[in-house]
């Protein structure tokens, strides 16, 4: 138990691990933690080393930069290359490689790409630069989507005509259904994302428990939170139950945030389908701006640019195929472990990522790389 000393309450950690050990007696389970924050925590604290090896963690598709397909990254960056355009993006997005480099590399070559921490920052850039078109590269699950929605409403209030959003917001339930529908993947239960549930409410996972008979435990991010969530999950599994339990009730309510839900419904509508890296197209898994907000929609304002770009891309594909393909999708689905990718730690490293899972600290490959040297295996 290498890390036990640095936990807040080592004794409680030990007894919880003991409880998990007895619940696992003679059994084996595969548990998916959907959220990248949990992935990070599990690796940081070496939880896999503390627990019986018959309890397998599958690191799920809950890291927004990891699941965005490269074509989408390219499209966002294509917008930055337009005359008079300023592209604003979150820090994690800056390092994700597109086919012709990352935002950071394109910025170094002279494009006006700026890192922001909030969509409100992007809005401010638009206010301060009336002669430029500012495009905000929006990513994230329901955690960040309300922020984007409110920012669009604010742009409308201000009557801005030089601000658009390239919307890549995704929703958390459809990919969970997608991994459950995949016959190659056997998942017994979920550690449910915590902070996304402050928006959609713990009740949102009810349909997973009901339709797939899989338990979901909404969990906090501390090691003890995750271990206690595992106890709840294993008890359900051993009893043949499938319910939603909320281990993180101190922060996550059962019901959705009413204001956020209203704002989301007002500004966004579901896309018929959206492409996920590694998971392919998933029906109704992402949103776009409603038609009444089309003047703030980068995909409308730059429709021609994007259409031409897609044609060029397709031609390129036909002529010489695309660059080296990466097996990130298999890692995302839990079919292989990060270090089973031939590129892991060699061509693909945090300082020069080839795949998106190596970019963010919430990506499984980056987490594995950063903490593997501390591990006992």
């Amino acid at each position, binding site marked *: 138990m290498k890390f036990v000393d*640095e936990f*807040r309450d080592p004794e409680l950690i030990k007894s919880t691990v003991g409880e998990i050990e007895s619940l696992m007696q003679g059994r084996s389970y595969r548990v998916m933690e959907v*959220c*990248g*924050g949990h992935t*990070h*925590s599990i690796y*940081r*604290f070496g939880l896999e080393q503390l627990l019986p090896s018959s309890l397998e963690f599958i690191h799920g598709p*809950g*890291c*927004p930069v990891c699941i965005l397909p490269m074509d989408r990254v390219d499209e966002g960056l294509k917008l930055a290359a337009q005359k008079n355009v300023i592209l604003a993006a*979150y*820090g*994690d997005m800056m390092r994700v490689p597109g086919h012709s480099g990352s935002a950071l590399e394109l910025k170094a070559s002279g494009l006006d790409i*700026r890192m*922001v*921490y*909030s*969509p*409100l*920052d992007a809005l*401010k*850039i638009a206010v*301060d630069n009336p002669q430029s078109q500012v495009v905000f590269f929006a990513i*994230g*699950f329901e*955690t*960040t989507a*309300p*922020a984007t929605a*409110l920012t669009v409403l604010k742009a409308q209030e201000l009557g801005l005509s030089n601000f658009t959003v390239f919307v890549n917001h995704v929703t958390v339930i459809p990919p969970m259904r997608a991994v459950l529908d995949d016959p190659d993947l056997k998942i017994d239960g979920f550690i449910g994302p915590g*902070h*996304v549930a*402050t*928006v959609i409410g713990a009740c949102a996972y009810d349909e997973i428990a009901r339709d797939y008979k899989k338990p979901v435990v909404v969990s*906090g*991010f*501390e090691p003890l939170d995750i271990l206690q969530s595992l106890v709840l999950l294993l008890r359900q599994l051993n009893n043949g139950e499938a319910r939603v339990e909320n281990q993180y009730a*101190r*922060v*996550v*309510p059962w019901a959705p*945030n*009413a*204001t*956020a839900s209203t*704002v989301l419904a007002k500004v966004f509508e579901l896309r018929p389908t959206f492409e996920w890296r590694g998971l392919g197209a998933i029906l109704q898994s992402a949103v776009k701006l409603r038609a009444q907000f089309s003047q703030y929609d980068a995909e409308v304002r730059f429709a021609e640019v994007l259409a031409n770009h897609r044609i060029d891309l397709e031609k390129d594909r036909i002529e010489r195929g695309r660059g080296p393909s990466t097996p990130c999708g298999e890692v995302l689905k839990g079919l292989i472990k990060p270090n089973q990718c031939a590129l892991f730690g060699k061509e693909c490293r945090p300082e020069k990522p080839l795949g998106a899972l190596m970019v963010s*600290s*919430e990506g499984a490959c980056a987490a594995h790389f950063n903490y593997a040297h501390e591990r006992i295996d």
Partner: protein
Amino acid sequence: MCLAIPGRVESFVDAERRMALADISGVKREISVDLLRGEGAQVEIGDWVLIHVGFAMSKISEKQAREQLEVLAMLGEAVAAAEEARGYGQS
């Protein structure tokens, strides 16, 4: 972006109380509290909130705020979180 940062509401910067000045680990930044307008969730001065990308997403207790700060520190995300907090409202 996915891990929330706790902050304490110090004052409101507009009449509609949609934007607030928050103390985020000693950094004073403007945040939106628009999402907590819902019934019963009205934010008051002195309240602790969890912040994502410049927007308060939920009210929490002071104890929860301290715990969350500890988690960020343990995950090695405290510096990034402080940077993020400093970044709100800048361009």
